[in-house]
């Protein structure tokens, strides 16, 4: 049981479980407990199986930690170190904190997997039916079922990867403080909120990495955070004591930089809007020159703007790398022209690759877009990207080979043309393997509806004969059987012990299926007196499978 290669993160001695002393191990992927005297773990839980941890309240004299599993069972550990209560609590807290960090990682995996499966089943009714038929009725185990559907699973997973989950602008408001009764406030942070904070304020993430756990504990860090201006927008920045002071400064600087960058959209830049360069003394008589003097209010406003900007940027951040790479390609566009060996061998540069200094065309386009009264125009002309050709002839003729090709004269062309024409004229089809006309027509007649060969086909009628419900049921059973048979046949050739086991199991499963599903269906159909055997094919398939199994078994027996 004990794998030595496993990384041990924490060992706590003097931990009691069911009144037995022992040692608690926290490892890379699981939590384990060993009785003092033994060498093997008597308890071992994968983190993924753990639903939650609970700790005993401070008022209780025993210092305990409870692990609750997904299946509802629980294990309680009692910290019983000799160093007194404070040491016990310290032990407990160290376990608790480590678990706190570890559990979310595994939890996410499990819950997302579950969710994914759930989604798949909901989206795909056929699969759901199959699941019901096979798993719920106990024919195969869920693991087996999902194993065979992993391809869907992963493909579905991939598509979700593309979209980044954004940040809710009100994430800070979601943290509802609760009074703990005696002059204190309690904030509940979830992993999601922490992630949101980190995403929105990269500076906080940096600070977190710097300070936790070297200089302060996780909870101390967040306490500070809740005291900072991030949480209380109306708080002015206090002395240098606060670790978030330089965050605030940094944020302000960031905003300033952003402002100084000047906005490229001419319609939005208010600083360039006004058109008068006369002295201030001549203007602004009518303006409301009252300026507010309340700096806290001003900083609130500024912080709201900053917050919204950061939230907006948090969801942009992921998509940016792609844009960046395309940008770098654009800037390469110039060099592409000169060396001519890039993805654009024809020396074609789209007009978007113009660099930023030349803004007028963009500006003009923007203004035009604003002006257009689309309902007055006749046709919405398609937006086209202008081609700017480095070398026009290369675009028109494609890359020309380096050697000078021989040009054919017009006489030669005419001559070739004539030759072809003659050939066609002389061409006689060679039809040795073909039916005579009369025979062909006869066969066609037989094969048309009403012909001799079309007597037995009752396809059309079958559709109408069998009611929809029965059709569905047959189809369902057919699907389920196919799925089982797929499992069965996939075991051949039986190369391993596991497959051997599986094939035997599958054989019994098939039998079970025949007894539990197919036969009742057959009886039911029999009651309806259909003269066609609707289940015939299914039976054939089963018989084929049984034959295969018997053959395999016989072969195996002789081998022994």
């Amino acid at each position, binding site marked *: 049981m004990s794998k030595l290669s496993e990384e041990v993160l924490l060992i706590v001695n003097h931990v009691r479980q069911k009144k037995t002393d022992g040692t608690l191990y926290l490892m890379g992927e699981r939590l384990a407990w060993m009785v003092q005297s033994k060498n093997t773990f008597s308890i071992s839980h994968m983190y993924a199986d753990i639903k939650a941890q609970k700790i005993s309240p401070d008022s209780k004299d025993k210092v305990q930690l409870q692990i609750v599993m997904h299946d509802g069972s629980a294990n309680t550990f009692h910290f019983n170190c000799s160093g007194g209560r404070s040491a016990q609590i310290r032990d407990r807290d160290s376990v608790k904190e480590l678990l706190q960090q570890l559990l979310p990682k595994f939890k996410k995996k499990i819950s997302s997997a579950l969710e994914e499966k759930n989604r798949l089943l909901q989206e795909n009714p056929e699969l759901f039916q199959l699941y019901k038929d096979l798993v719920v009725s106990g024919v195969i185990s869920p693991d087996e079922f999902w194993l065979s559907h992993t391809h869907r699973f992963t493909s579905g997973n991939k598509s979700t990867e593309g979209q980044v989950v954004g940040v809710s602008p009100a994430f800070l408001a979601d943290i509802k403080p609760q009074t703990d009764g005696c002059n204190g406030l309690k904030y509940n942070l979830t992993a999601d909120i922490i992630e949101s904070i980190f995403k929105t304020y990269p500076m906080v993430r940096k600070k977190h990495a710097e300070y936790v756990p070297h200089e302060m504990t996780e909870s101390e860090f967040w306490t500070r955070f809740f005291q900072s201006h991030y949480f209380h927008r109306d708080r002015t920045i206090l002395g240098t004591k606060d670790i978030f002071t330089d965050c605030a400064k940094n944020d302000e600087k960031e905003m300033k930089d952003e402002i100084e960058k000047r906005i490229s959209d001419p319609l*939005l830049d208010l600083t360039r809007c*006004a*058109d008068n360069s006369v002295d201030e*003394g001549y203007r602004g*008589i009518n303006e409301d020159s009252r300026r507010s003097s309340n700096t806290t209010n001003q900083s609130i406003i500024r912080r709201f703007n900053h917050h919204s900007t950061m939230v907006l940027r948090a969801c942009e951040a992921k998509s940016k790398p792609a844009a960046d790479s395309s940008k770098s390609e654009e800037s390469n566009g110039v060099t592409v022209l000169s060396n001519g060996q890039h993805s654009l061998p024809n020396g074609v540069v789209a007009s978007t690759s113009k660099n930023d200094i030349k803004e007028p065309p963009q500006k*003009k386009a923007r203004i*035009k877009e604003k002006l257009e009264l689309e309902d*007055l125009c006749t046709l919405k002309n398609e937006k086209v990207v202008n081609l700017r050709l480095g070398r026009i002839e290369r675009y028109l003729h494609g890359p020309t080979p380096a050697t000078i090709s021989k040009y054919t004269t017009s006489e030669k062309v005419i001559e070739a043309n004539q030759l072809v024409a003659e050939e066609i004229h002389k061409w006689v089809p060679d039809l040795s393997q073909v039916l005579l006309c009369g025979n062909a027509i006869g066969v066609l007649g037989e094969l048309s509806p009403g012909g001799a060969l079309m007597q037995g086909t009752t396809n059309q009628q079958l559709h109408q004969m069998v009611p929809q419900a029965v059709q569905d049921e047959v189809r369902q059973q057919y699907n389920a059987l196919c799925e089982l048979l797929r499992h069965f046949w996939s075991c051949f050739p039986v190369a391993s012990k596991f497959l051997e086991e599986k094939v035997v199991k599958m054989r019994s499963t098939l039998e079970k299926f025949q007894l539990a599903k197919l036969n009742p269906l057959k009886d039911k159909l029999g009651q309806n007196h259909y003269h066609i055997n609707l289940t015939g094919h299914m039976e054939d398939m089963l018989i084929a499978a049984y034959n295969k199994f018997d053959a395999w078994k016989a072969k195996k027996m002789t081998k022994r």
Partner: protein
Amino acid sequence: MKLNIDGLLVYFPYEYIYPEQYLYMLELKRSIDAKGHCALEMPSGTGKTISLLSLIMAYMRAYPLHITKLIYCSRTVPELEKVVEELRYLVNYYEKETGEYPNILGLALSSRKNLCINPQVTQDHEGRTIDGRCHELTVSFVRQRHKTDPSIPICRFYEDFDALGREIPLPAGVYGLDDLKDYGTKKGWCPYFLARYALSHANIVVYSYYYLLDPKIAEMVSKELSKTSVVVFDEAHNIDNVCIESMSVKMTRKTLDKCSQNIDRLDKHIQRIKEHDAEQLKEEYHRLVEGLRDANVARETDVVLANPVVPDEILQEAVPGNIRTAEHFLGFMKRFVEYLKTRLRVHHMVSESPPSFLKDCFQKVCIERKPLRFCAERLRSLLRTLQLTDIQDMSALTLVSNFATLVSTYAKGFVLIIEPFDDRTPTISNPILYLSCMDASIAIKPVFDRFQTVVITSGTLSPLDMYPKILDFRPVTMASFTMTLARTCLCPMIVSKGNDQVAMTSKFETREDVAVIRNYGNLLVDMSAVVPDGIACFFTSYIYMETIVASWYEQGIIDQIQKHKLLFIETQDAAETSLALLNYQKACENGRGAVLLSVARGKVSEGIDFDHHFGRAVIMFGVPYVYTQSRILKARLEYLRDNYQIRENDFLTFDAMRHAAQCVGRVLRGKTDYGIMVFADKRFARADKRNKIPRWIQEHLTDNLCNLSIDEAVQVGKRFLRLMAQPFSRDDQLGHSLLTLEQLQSEEMQKKLASKMQYV
């Protein structure tokens, strides 16, 4: 399509036309025929600009002697560029239809900041420094000196333009700011001076209001424009404020201190010149004695700011004797500045008329009215004689001399206000002296007198009859057009109370009330849950918005808003706001949705469109009254009452409603667009306010939408949005709100259109 507008062939560059565009052109044609002025209101997003351009262009081609030029004034640089693009579209259409490029020169003009291509000058982004640098390189005596001493830097673009540019006229075409720059770069000519030069022979000129309304600039730039021009003021709902700003001056103690420094510097300079070269000054003096108002012939590059008073008021006589010599003039200015400084030392608010100021000035320092009137010109002449390059340093002195000229020229229509401190900080002394124009008609009068047709137009110009009053002109036509709609794509409503029945209002007495603020918050929260994409909100003032945001934060309303949308807020810093806007649009673009809190009368409300998904709803929190405690406003109200019989309340309501309409109108930019317009104040439902909402909005503001609670408003909004989400194709519009040529020409449509007009 080719239209027949009252006998005039008009090329209209689209295949379809809105009925109101046709009517608009019809009205415009009539006023041009009558050689009179007009005021026209047409909803935004119904193609006002293109209708204007099409008709006037057709008129110009048909009667080239009747109209020679179109002067199109707009407010902001992006708007100028939009007009240029529309013009380009029209000209291209002409080319396509007639087979030849029309011989039309269209041109945009802006400040040097937007046109300069000299890399040494454009390093700075500040408009004033660019002007100053340009002046240093191009002023005539610097160029003169350069001829003897090539090490003195000059601007090669201007030199090349001066050498060659005047001979070769700008080829026909449409030139936006960037086109001018490109052309200038290609030829190596200065685009700014090229454009200013081409102004005189261009057919269509597009520039900002100030080039026509501010006498300091208009004298320089627009002096030679022909009288047979049509002048268009687009987005003119705020034109009176522009007029007032053009004539007003504001000074602080810092200005005066700087001014003293300027005088000292000039003094030293004069002493130095006297030692070396007294001739220069003598010559100037003699010229002034001879009666020349200007000692030198000013070239285009020499003048930075022209006389601040309108041309009619400039005295056509010689400079008075006591300020003819340079020293005397400086002494005179010194005395005047000292006098102003003593005036700024007051401890209480002063408000007086220019005559009483002049009287006091005469009693205290013996300065008469006459020489004061010449201050601006005399200073200009002196600066040119002294050959100072860094004119921008002298801005304080220029400001004071302009003030002197203004205060001594106008006895009426101006008020002088000295505020010793800010109202909210009475302990900090920060005296400001305002010379504020109260009569918008002073600045615009020369324009009305000079040009045969002046068109005042905007999307929101209600109530129309107010404009002729405050601008003092007689229009031949005034008309307000509504938007013909195949589906009601706007949903105006007045929310007057919260779900708790507490009245919703930004009235001064209750605006700080917690219940009111909470109800405003709830309205926004509920709306943000229902409305897709963008919501724009406007508050009455910045300070009010700030307090509301702070208390929303405390009440947890912000958190609730953030659950649905991202939140962006306008700040008093333009660059910061631009960034917030950019992110707001990004959030609307990527589907997260966003709320923008902003201020009526602010930069956002005047310059940014929230078309389509950038604004599916707009909420006006409160009636955006102007800050009524301002002394300048009080003086203006009094003046309007005494001289134009406009009651204070009428004007205040008018002003508030035009800004509310402007904010609310931002959301709808066309017939395919749709949006909810929420007026969140019970006072909007009163007749005096409701009547002042533009007709095209008022039409849809039925009685049942005038007294809603938050819940009801949300229900109405939901239903509206569900309706709007249905597919909407051209066929739905055709024949009703969109016409083909045949439909337009049909008799019944003509009758229907005729009945639609509402004359004011």
